[in-house]
């Protein structure tokens, strides 16, 4: 297309491709098209491109993905909110330090005041709480269970989904007559493998060791499922099933036990001491 004479029709051509052209502009463009082969070819070429490109291909996420969406979002929001509240104190502290830095005399005064305030708090708490604290201490030796990190929750969901997929593959009727179609299982396996890449990076190699080991084993089987022929791949299906049975994978996925193990590996937090008023 020659740039100069056709330049002013570029917007119209684009609008025409997507059906956005007004009737008046359409008439003008038609007149131009009768005498310009390049623009005519451009339009024909674009029909070809859009025809071949087709509609957008989006993954059909399984229903449990959508069911768990809100839960995952709420959890993320909660985590971010708690981090944000921490950073508010950090910002406040920084602001105060900057303010003090601008007034050098204020620093020793603030330090002294801080130390005195701490001493006072200690005396008050000790006075009211000391006689009860031994009993209370005995009663509250149990540590507060640490919050399960988001990656662990996602890993548990991942394991659960893998388990469902594996059960499906194991129970699918496979025979030449049954003509099984594994396209859905292949798609799900590939999604799980993609998610596993991210989880492998996020999980803690020490605390989540057992989950990671199991995930690695499962990834091999998922890779086999992802590479199945869409239909009639009977021998490969048998191979996958043998692998699942040999490694006892379905028995190994015990979500509750893994979660408990992961919790044990996270350093326990000390219980917060409650104020006398609460006690």
């Amino acid at each position, binding site marked *: 297309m020659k740039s100069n004479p056709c330049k002013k029709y570029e917007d119209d051509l684009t609008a025409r*491709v997507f059906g956005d052209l007004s009737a008046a502009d359409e008439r003008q463009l038609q007149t131009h098209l009768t005498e310009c082969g390049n623009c005519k070819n451009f339009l024909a070429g674009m029909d070809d491109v859009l025809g071949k490109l087709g509609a957008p291909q989006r993954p059909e996420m399984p229903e449990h993905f959508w069911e768990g969406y809100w839960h995952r979002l709420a959890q993320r929001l909660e985590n971010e909110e708690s981090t944000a509240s921490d950073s508010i104190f950090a910002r406040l502290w920084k602001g105060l330090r900057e303010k003090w830095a601008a007034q050098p005399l204020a620093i020793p005064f603030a330090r002294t005041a801080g130390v005195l305030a701490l001493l006072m708090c200690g005396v008050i708490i000790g006075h009211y709480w000391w006689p009860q604290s031994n009993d209370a201490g005995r009663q509250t030796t149990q540590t507060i269970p640490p919050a399960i990190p988001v990656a662990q929750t996602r890993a548990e969901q991942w394991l659960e989904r893998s388990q469902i997929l594996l059960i499906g593959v194991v129970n699918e009727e496979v025979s030449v007559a049954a003509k099984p179609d594994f396209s859905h299982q292949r798609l799900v396996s590939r999604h799980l493998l993609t998610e596993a890449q991210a989880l492998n990076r996020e999980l803690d190699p020490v605390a989540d060791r057992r989950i990671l080991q199991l995930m690695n084993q499962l990834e091999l089987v998922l890779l086999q499922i992802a590479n199945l022929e869409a239909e009639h791949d009977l021998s490969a299906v048998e191979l996958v099933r043998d692998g699942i049975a040999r490694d006892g994978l379905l028995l190994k996925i015990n979500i509750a036990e893994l979660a408990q193990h992961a919790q044990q590996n996270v350093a326990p937090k000390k219980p917060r001491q409650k104020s006398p008023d609460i006690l």
Partner: protein
Amino acid sequence: MANDEKALIRRLQTGEASAFRELVENHKRALFNLAYDLLGNATDAEVISQEAFIKVYRSIGEFRGEAQLGSWMYRIVVNLCLNRRRKKALSEMELRESFEENELHAATPTSDHAADPEKATEAEIMRRHLRRALDRLSPQQKTIFVLRHDDDLPLAEISKMLKISEGTVKSQLFRALRKLQEALVFYKADLVS
């Protein structure tokens, strides 16, 4: 703006938790799909769509209702996707996109050619080639093309969303179309040679 939407916004602005859940349930698929169209993989699409909801949750107080709630949320997703594309290491992005692309195309037979597997494969290869060409467009061009072609948004809406003039949207879209057409021509020439 519909009355239902106005009521929902009011409830959100008063901090009603059930209103936020309602918003998420109503829009989660649309935001996820848009992020998927722009980023090409499901994991990132979930992260981005959730980030968008969190942004909405935090800034709903500033929403004055000048645009539709849906358009506003779309705009947030588009901006988050553009930022993510800028920040993310290119190599990692390409690796994951190509993996995701293979998975999708391998799993989705083209129904038009269902009767002729050879033609179906040919069409599929051509489509992959064009989708790859789409990924090579500039982030802005790809975003505009995806919003117009895949999400069927009007040019005026895209212009508002990206805060650029409608003229720029049109010229960027034209360039995107030209590049896609060139990609197809080169591909066909390669086949012949």
